[in-house]
Each structure stands twice: as C-alpha cells, then as structure tokens.
C-alpha cells in the first residue's frame, strides 16, 4: 500500500493525529516533525519508503490536528506524550526519524525507551552549546500572534520564505497554515528546545545513530558539532534548506533506508 492515510489515536491528554503508510508486517519507522510543521512534511518520504517500511508520522501535541497543550514543560514531556500515542497504536520496536525539533523529541524518546528504539536518525540535529541555548532562548520565541489588521500573516509568510518554504507555493501555503495553527504552541515548543541539553543526550544515546543535514539548513553550523560528538554516527548530506523531506524526499528517504538496512538483522524484524 503506497497511499498515505490519516487517523487519530486517543491518549490521556487528547487525540494525537498521524499519517501512516506501508504494510503492517514491515519494520516500523516513526517520524517527528519540526516546529511548527506537522506530519504532512513526511508525506513524500513516506510514499517513497512505504514499499519496504511501515511508516507513522505524528503531529506533536500543539501542532497540526493534534490536541493543544497549554504548557510544554520540556522536550522529554513531548516525547512522553508521543510514546503514549505509539503505545496506543500497538507499536513495539521502531526506528525514530526526527527533523529539527522532531529530532530533539526523537532523542528524548530514544533516551526514555532505548530498548524499543532500534535506531535514531536526525535530520538537522539541534545541538546548541549553553551560550547558544541562552541566546536562541531569547530570539526564537516570537510567535505570529493574530492581530486584527492581519499583518501577522505577511510576517509569517516572509519568515517562511527565509527558511526555504518558498520553494513551491504549495509548500509555502501548507507551512503557513501549519505555523499559524500552532501560533500558541510554537513559543512553548521552542522554549522547551532551548532548555534541553541535547548535546548531553546525543552523547549518551546508545542505539545506532544517523545524522543528516543540508548545507543551506539554518542548523548546518551545528551539524559539525553533532558529528564531532558522535564520530560513530552514519552521516548524509542532503538538499532542501530547512525542508529536506519536502524538497529532497528521494535522497532523504534513500539515506534513511540505507541506514536502516545496515542495522543488525535481529533488530530488523517487525515491531
């Protein structure tokens, strides 16, 4: 089955929305999106991968069509909420693929339930040092607050162009809608990201690791740091600015599939 379908799964906090593709018996990959996108960003990749893998992409609580928390205490808290969704879907063992904030969330999931996470793949690892965390904590907190003049719409549209969403009008429009649905959650999630000690987590995480990035990703400067922290990690350079899964889906999917296919045979069985 190559079609991506959508659904909701009930968790204690509310409904978590997801997209899925692939045969139930195939090895599972769980995808986690960046701020402030949604599971939509993995649709093209999932279509590429669905012949060999069972894919689930989640809308993180606060984003897309998932329930809206009023606070986000930490990235680990988001990870726990998504583990609840994964459990409710009956998924046992799986590969994690996270993009930007989704990588931060995926890292926490890998730390929380290492026995169930076969491998971790991060597209655009977020590995700020303590100075950067403090600095970004002040900069990356501006939400697009609705105002009666509608000026916030152009602000959001122009911001999305600067991070590469203007590659196509469909992508630009879809990201605008996702970013503005999540105007309340965006500063909550970013706040949690800059409070996370991702470097410590990345150094500690024990399963096979893949690090991916594109040279025109806003996080490219941190990619070298992530690779230094984990010289054992598999790496891949892809294209597409901050939107690799949308703009370079075939290469990202291929890199991920190649990485998963190198995993030990005993851990390649279905979840």
């Amino acid at each position, binding site marked *: 089955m190559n079609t991506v379908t959508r659904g909701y799964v009930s968790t204690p906090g509310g409904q978590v929305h997801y997209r899925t593709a692939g045969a139930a018996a195939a090895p599972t990959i769980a995808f986690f999106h960046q701020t402030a996108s949604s599971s939509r960003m993995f649709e093209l990749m999932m279509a590429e991968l669905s012949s060999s893998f069972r894919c689930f992409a989640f809308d993180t609580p606060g984003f897309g069509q998932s329930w809206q928390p009023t606070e986000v205490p930490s990235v680990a808290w988001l990870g726990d909420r998504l583990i609840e969704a994964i459990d409710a879907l009956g998924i046992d063992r799986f590969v994690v693929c996270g993009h930007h904030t989704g990588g931060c969330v995926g890292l926490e999931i890998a730390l929380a339930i290492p026995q169930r996470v076969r491998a971790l793949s991060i597209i655009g690892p977020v590995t700020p040092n303590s100075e950067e965390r403090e600095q970004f904590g002040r900069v990356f907190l501006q939400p697009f607050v*609705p105002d009666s003049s509608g000026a916030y719409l*152009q602000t959001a549209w122009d911001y999305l162009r600067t991070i590469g969403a203007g590659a196509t009008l469909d992508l*630009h*429009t879809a990201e*605008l809608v996702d970013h503005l649905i999540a105007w309340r959650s965006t500063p909550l999630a970013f706040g949690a990201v800059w409070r996370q000690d991702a470097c410590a987590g990345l150094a500690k995480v024990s399963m096979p690791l893949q690090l991916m990035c594109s040279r025109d990703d806003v996080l490219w400067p941190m990619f070298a740091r992530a690779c230094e922290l984990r010289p054992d990690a598999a790496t891949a350079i892809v294209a597409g600015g901050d939107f690799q899964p949308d703009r370079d889906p075939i290469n990202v999917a291929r890199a991920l599939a190649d990485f998963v296919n190198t995993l030990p045979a005993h851990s390649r069985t279905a979840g």
Partner: protein
Amino acid sequence: MIQKGYANIAAGQVHYRRQHGPGLPVICLHQTASSGAMWVKVMEQMAGERAFIAFDTPGFGGSFDPPQLPPSIGTYAEWLLEAIDALGVGQFHILCHHTGACIAVEMTSRQPERVTSVAMIGPVPLTEAERNEYKKHYSTPFSPTAAGEYLNTTWDYLRGLGAHGDLALHHRELLDTARAYMGRFMAYTNVWRQDFTTPFMAIRVPLLLMCATDDVLWPFFGRSKELRPDADSAVLKGANFEPDLDPEGVVAAYRGFLKKHGL
C-alpha cells in the same frame, strides 16, 4: 466531548467532528470555505442533548481534495452520504449553512427516506440571473502568490463577511480558506450552477429556515419563506458566521424546532 476522526470512502478520507448523545444524529454541513469547526460552539452548547457529526466537505478542512472539479454539487452530497454510511448511521437530521444547504437539498432529494428534518442557515433560492451575478464575486480563487499578499486579500474579504466579530474566528477562517483555495473555487463553481429551488421545494420533512439580517443571503430569506410558508423560521445575528457569532440564537431556534416537531 467532541472527537475528531475520518470516514473512509472510495474517493478518500472525510474528516469529521463527532459528539455522542441521544437520538438520531444531527449531520452538520458547513459553508464555503469553512470546515466542521464552525459547528463546535453549537455542538458544545447542545452536549448531552443530541448526537452530532460535523463533516469537513471534500476540498476543505481535513478532508481529501477532489482531484478535479466535481461535476455538480450532487457529487458532494454523494460523497457525504457515503461517509455517513461508513459511520454506520441510518436516519439523520441535517443542520446546514450556505453551501452546506446546497449540499443538504441534494442529499435529501437522493435519499429522502433517511433525512428526518432539515434546518438551514442562509438558504440559497437564487434565480439563474442572480447566480450568475454572485458567481462574479465568489468564484475567483484566492490563489497563493509568492509575495503572499493574497493572505491579506483573504483577510480583508473575511472581514467583509463579518469574521472580524471575533479574532479567533477570523484567524480560523483565514486558515480554512487558505487551506481550501482550490476547494473553495470548486465548491462555488458548483453552487452557482445548481438549481437549489427545485430540491428545496421537494423537502417533505420538517424544515427550519434561519438567517442573520447582515448575512449576504439575507436578501433571499423572504423569498425562501414565501416559497416554503410551511417552514419554521428564525432571524439570527452574526453576519455570515451565525453559529460562531450567535450560537445562542442558533441553538434556541434549533431546540424549539426539534421540540415543536417532536424530533
């Protein structure tokens, strides 16, 4: 409590909001270019009284996008009837608004035995000449442009329809309209070529007609009542967004209607 979900039909996935409750379910059909979100306030105010299912029409909200222009408004009715089937619903009431009313009369004419009552906000009994005139104003898509100025055009258009009565509504309608820029074009194209009046006159179940005095369809409300003097009627507030801006008025009129007819 409102739960969201998808009904799977042959053409794709139809997104809905559902609230369980007693009695036959009320199927809610939204206007162009909103989504089932426009019924949330009404559903919440009637929690425990009625079962509700508010669909996102194909091309809108979380539902699938028609791959090409549907041949008629009846196609939407057939998709939604299939979605109702998929949810295991037999008979139902309809509560609908603007384009939702256009779809409702087609559902009723196709499967009259399943529809137990129809309540519509902003009936659309336009003559062909009037439809051609409206078509000029409501069929031009707000197509995305690289500069992004279409967003403010859409924002101002929604202000003209009264969405600015509540900033959260204005914001939500902007996102629904941006998401449905193709769906809006497809639905309006079919609305303005539909003969609404014939299936409207054929409705044989209790009928409630509602409209706000500042609704764009208010000029046709008197005609609707003349065409159907047997129908109940109520005047609302809230411009083109009555269920969001005057949910108390909608609920009071709807409750009274259901009670009067023992529904």
